């Protein structure tokens, strides 16, 4: 992975010193709340329901074990012993003390981490495919490009006060595992007309109140031009994006208002006008960055058919929580943070320390964070799988539910977030309780449930096969259900099935929906999403709102 040099360390130390001074001025009354807010936000610090919330960047979801150990240390020393992994591949601490945040940032800097631009109206943490470098369907590793974007976007002088937040995702595989089509900008590594690899650029995607799938504005961009082209997009957005209404300030609104042709024309015109100044990457720079992400020292191993060991628990875990690796003899292992009864995405300091130990032993000292709030050990030798499973199980990190109904995305919701209309964690627990029969979960097959506690859609509910959105109805928590969304392959936004349901009825509503699927699927091979696409939401709607309650 990318290792900081003296330059990066100097920058980060100066940044921490700046925020320490700003915090001091705020606490001394020299900066008002309004003046301090944009400064603290750009250092990851929110003021939440109970306390400040600190969002720490995990660039493109990649962590070295010494970094994971530091996250554990921070959880213990400055928080309440745990952290929450988010859909942006970041980690959030819910109970830090404002006066201690500069110390936390200093501790993070000691392991080459930071919280820069994890909130505020600026370019946010760049995200990527969590299977980068190990997936067989990958054209090229997106992470070198992510790191280049991270550096370029860090304190970019021109784009630090944008109309609204700005999220970039990069993928290099034929399957989009980074939800790149619902980002402000999606960057895809693709082959160009002459067969050379470059980028396809999408703009104007996003979720929130107005979900939109990104539009292609450049079919192919040569590699050296990536950052210059991004600057052209951002300059058009910075100049013309709306600033009069926070709900209409994302780039998707500008793209829609201008139309994609006119938006593209303006970007291309800006790019042409700025040609002399636009950053242009040299081949040697690209090669140096790519070398940082060279594959680990894989052993030459035979492919094994199944894990050595035959317990049912091990086989279920193997089947559901591991995936094919492009190198013979290896598997990708998903570490489930969706243990039934726990808040999805939460991890204790003890679990972090223990997982760091296991990653050192079994996966070249690296861990990845997925955008659906699990962790990944990407490079596990197949002959180590049984031992790894035996170690993960007592830690509560081997729940064999990856890709199933209970592997749901869940925002912090009303329990922590000051924006939320309704709780999310309670609903997750309700679903965990109701659907605790793993044979039933396995029979249902792949179902992505995504849940947000408000319209801001941190839980990506629009692109869940089943989406759950918390709404406030006269001070009560209600939930709107959508069906048929998808974040990858044929990207689609879910369709609302009807009026929202009361809090205690959410799992029962899901049970009705699933019953329709089981009855109507053509065969066991037809997935939930395929059935919804084939028969439409009508039959589901009918069942959910039937007055006969026996079906529930």
């Amino acid at each position, binding site marked *: 992975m990318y290792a900081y*040099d003296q*330059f*990066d360390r*100097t*920058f980060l130390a*100066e*940044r921490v010193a*700046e925020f320490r001074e*700003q915090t001091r001025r705020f606490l001394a009354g020299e*900066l008002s709340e*309004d*003046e301090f807010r*944009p*400064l603290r936000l750009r250092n990851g610090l929110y003021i939440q329901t109970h306390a400040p919330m600190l969002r720490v960047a995990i660039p493109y979801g990649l962590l070295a074990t010494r970094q994971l150990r530091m996250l554990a240390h921070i959880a213990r020393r400055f928080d309440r012993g745990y952290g929450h992994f988010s859909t942006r591949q970041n980690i959030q601490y819910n109970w830090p003390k404002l006066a201690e945040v500069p110390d936390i940032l200093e501790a993070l800097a000691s392991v080459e981490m930071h919280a820069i631009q994890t909130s505020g*109206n600026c370019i946010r943490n760049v995200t990527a495919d969590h299977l980068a470098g190990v997936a067989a369907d990958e054209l090229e590793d997106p992470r070198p490009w992510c790191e*280049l974007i991270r*550096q*370029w976007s*860090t*304190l*970019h*002088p*021109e*784009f*630090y*006060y*944008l*109309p609204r937040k700005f999220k970039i995702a990069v993928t290099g595989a034929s399957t989009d595992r980074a939800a790149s089509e619902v980002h402000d900008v999606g960057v895809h590594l693709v082959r160009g007309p002459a067969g050379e690899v470059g980028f396809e650029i999408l703009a104007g995607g996003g979720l929130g109140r107005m979900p939109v799938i990104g539009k292609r504005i450049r079919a192919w961009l040569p590699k050296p031009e990536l*950052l210059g082209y991004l600057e052209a997009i951002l*300059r058009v957005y*910075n*100049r013309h994006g709306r*600033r009069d209404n926070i709900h209409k300030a994302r780039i998707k609104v500008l793209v829609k208002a201008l139309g994609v042709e006119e938006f593209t024309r303006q970007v291309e015109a800006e790019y042409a*006008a*700025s040609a*002399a*100044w636009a*950053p*242009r*990457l*040299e081949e040697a*720079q690209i090669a*140096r*960055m790519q070398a940082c992400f060279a594959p680990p020292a894989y052993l030459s191993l035979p492919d094994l058919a199944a894990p050595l060991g035959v317990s049912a628990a091990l086989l279920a875990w193997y089947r559901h929580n591991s995936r094919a690796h492009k190198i013979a003899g290896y598997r990708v292992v998903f570490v489930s943070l969706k243990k039934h009864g726990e808040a999805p995405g939460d991890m204790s300091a003890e679990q972090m320390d223990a997982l760091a130990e296991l990653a050192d032993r079994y996966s070249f000292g690296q861990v990845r964070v997925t955008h659906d709030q699990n962790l990944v050990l990407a490079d596990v030798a197949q002959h180590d799988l049984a031992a790894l499973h035996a170690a993960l199980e007592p830690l509560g990190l081997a729940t064999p539910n990856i890709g199933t109904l209970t592997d749901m995305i869940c925002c912090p919701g009303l329990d922590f977030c000051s924006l939320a209309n309704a709780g999310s964690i309670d609903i997750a627990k309700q679903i965990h309780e109701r659907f605790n029969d793993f044979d039933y979960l396995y029979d249902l097959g792949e179902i992505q449930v995504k849940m947000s506690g408000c319209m801001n859609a941190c839980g990506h509910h629009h692109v869940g096969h089943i989406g759950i959105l918390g709404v406030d109805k006269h001070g009560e928590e209600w939930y709107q259900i959508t069906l048929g969304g998808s974040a990858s392959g044929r990207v689609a936004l879910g369709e609302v099935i009807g009026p929202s349901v009361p809090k205690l009825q959410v799992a029962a509503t899901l049970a009705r929906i699933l019953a329709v699927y089981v009855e109507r699927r053509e065969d066991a091979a037809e997935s939930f999403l395929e059935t919804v696409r084939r028969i439409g939401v009508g039959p589901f709607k009918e069942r959910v709102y039937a007055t006969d309650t026996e079906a529930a």
Partner: protein
Amino acid sequence: MRLILRRPEPAADVWRYPGEAGSGPQVLTLAELTAGAAAAGALGVLIGPTDDVRLLAPYLGRLTLVVVQFEKLGDGRGYSQAQVLRQQVGYRGELRASGALKRDHMYLLARCGFDAFELDPSEDGQGAWAQLERFSVAYQASSGTLVHPHLKGAALGS
């Protein structure tokens, strides 16, 4: 009296902004300038957040002051206006950032090419100037003249 932070030291402003009485040279709005309101001699112009600074290109020879207004905290349009003025239009005269600005904004403003600052009146000028030394390194090229950070050439072209 308006105090302007600039090198070599802060100084009282000699210009009159639009609507101000007095004897100094008059700063025009962009609309006034393009409508032909300029008198002979040095030109000063006030740029609002939605103004297109490329319209200043024909006046480059006589233009000695451009004031970019930051009407609200967090409005970042002026940063792009400055970059375009310095990089594409080629303006080399005084580029002044004025309005809802604290010392915390000065470093990035300077990196976009601003070389004079009219901050929120509550700011102490001398303390603010030190902000330009806040960072000794930067990941991006700069169109500024006040800050010359050592760039990360390994990462980005410069």
